[in-house]
């Protein structure tokens, strides 16, 4: 299976790897996947309370190259977005950008789940109503 240059770049030089303090009120953490399935993603966002925009995003992923690249790309896209715009990120955009082969589409779905789960966590902490459709899991 030949991977795209973009995917390989995100895999070899992953952006925004790291861990935020999840006890902070303006940090939302999403942990999705399972070790038994071969992939676990943890994606975190830090929201600027003044503007309501995501000012930083970090991830760590246990998984294949496509899973790592999908989550790395997601953190890059998240920075600067409003929470609502972040919720609109569709997994198929990740598929396109990284040219994921069909057998790896589930990696992009997991990344979308991680984004939604991180946002849901942030909203819960801040007393914002979480829409049913925003909750992760499928």
């Amino acid at each position: 299976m030949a991977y795209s240059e973009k995917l390989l770049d995100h895999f070899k030089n992953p952006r925004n790897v790291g861990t935020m303090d999840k006890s902070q009120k303006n940090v939302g953490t999403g942990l999705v996947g399972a070790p038994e399935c071969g992939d676990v993603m943890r994606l975190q966002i830090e929201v600027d309370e003044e503007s309501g925009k995501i000012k930083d995003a970090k991830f760590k992923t246990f998984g294949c190259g496509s899973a790592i690249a999908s989550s790395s790309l997601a953190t890059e896209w998240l920075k600067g977005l409003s929470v609502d715009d972040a919720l609109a990120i569709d997994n198929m955009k990740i598929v396109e950008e990284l040219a994921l082969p069909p057998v790896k589409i589930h990696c992009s779905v997991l990344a979308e789940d991680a984004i939604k789960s991180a946002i849901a966590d942030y909203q819960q902490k801040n007393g914002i109503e979480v829409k049913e459709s925003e909750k992760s899991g499928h």
Partner: protein
Amino acid sequence: MNNKRQIYLDNNATTPCDPRVVDTMIPYFYEKHGNAASRNHPFGWVAEEAVDYAREQIANLINVDSKEIIFTSGATEADNLALKGVFEMYQRKGNHIITLKTEHKAVLDACKKIEKMGGQVTYLDVDSEGLVDLAALEAAITDKTILVSIMWANNETGTIQPMKKIGEICEKHGVLFMSDATQVVGKIPVDPKEIGVHLMAFTAHKMYGPKGVGALYVCRKNPRVKVTAQMDGGGHERGMRSGTLNVPGIVGFGKAAEIASKEMGADAERLSKLRDKLENALIAAMEEVYINGSKEHRMPHVSNLSFKHVEGEGLMMTFNQDIALSSGSACTSASLEPSYVLVALGLGDDLAHSSLRFSLGRFTTEEDIDYTIKAITQGVNHMRDLSPIWEMYKEGVDIDSIEWSEH
């Protein structure tokens, strides 16, 4: 990292064809292109002579009579011929076959087909090293049992089964014993007659011969074993396998067997030292590295390791430009299941997903191993830096206590 030569550590998948084998094969494509079944002209005689010679070379390697070698297209066909051929031939005696959960798919899927054809198959568990439980094997034999099929050594872990003891149990109960010996023939001494193996499948391309040619050993004396042909046609190979013989392939197979007879002892000694060097260095360099399979009863050139909290396929991407090997992790939407062989050993799915199989071969050098040690260590460290479960493990979080969202 840059390395001019691609390092090949996937010899259990296939071995390169030894150049001496290739040289021997070449005349049989053009000058000596005859059909070994053409009885009426020199082209046919030359081809037949070459096939007979190769049959001797192969028989010598495993210490059997050359008449007991049936050529096939490979080990998968030989496994199918043995299992289905015995099932059909011995139907009046019984319909029960015993095998292991860790067998190759060629055996497992042939057994599933046999179940559809009215057979009964027992799939025995293995212990944490991958070894058969001899008491359970003996207890599984009934008056309907016609065949026990147990692979000599496992392709993923290199674990070698207690063949002599299995042979004794089969002998005691008057049951035929078949073995998929694909990973052992040409690598370590194999003597089916001494062990009491009546049918044995193996292939050229795992012992530095060409792809597309394999063999089934079928015992001719005490007992005289017969299998029902699975392919109808010209009645080649004493009626057990029709089809024009792959003469160049068979010539290469013979040469590969002859080379193995002379060199496998030295190869095995050298490779076990390199394998141990690789394994010991990786275990010394990193925490949480585990050996899968039996350390004591193991092929000299194989090492299957789990690097905890790192996913195998991702790990391979860190070095697969330079080093070719296999992982027990299949991370695709088609199959999220990790290796069934490792799972049968009792490994959790997470450890099975974290595994790499290193299989060394005749052309592996010490420089290859030194480079591999460095590359794997770097790769594992890179992947652990990225792994949230490694971070949790380092913080003392009990990973098993987390409620994961299955997907």
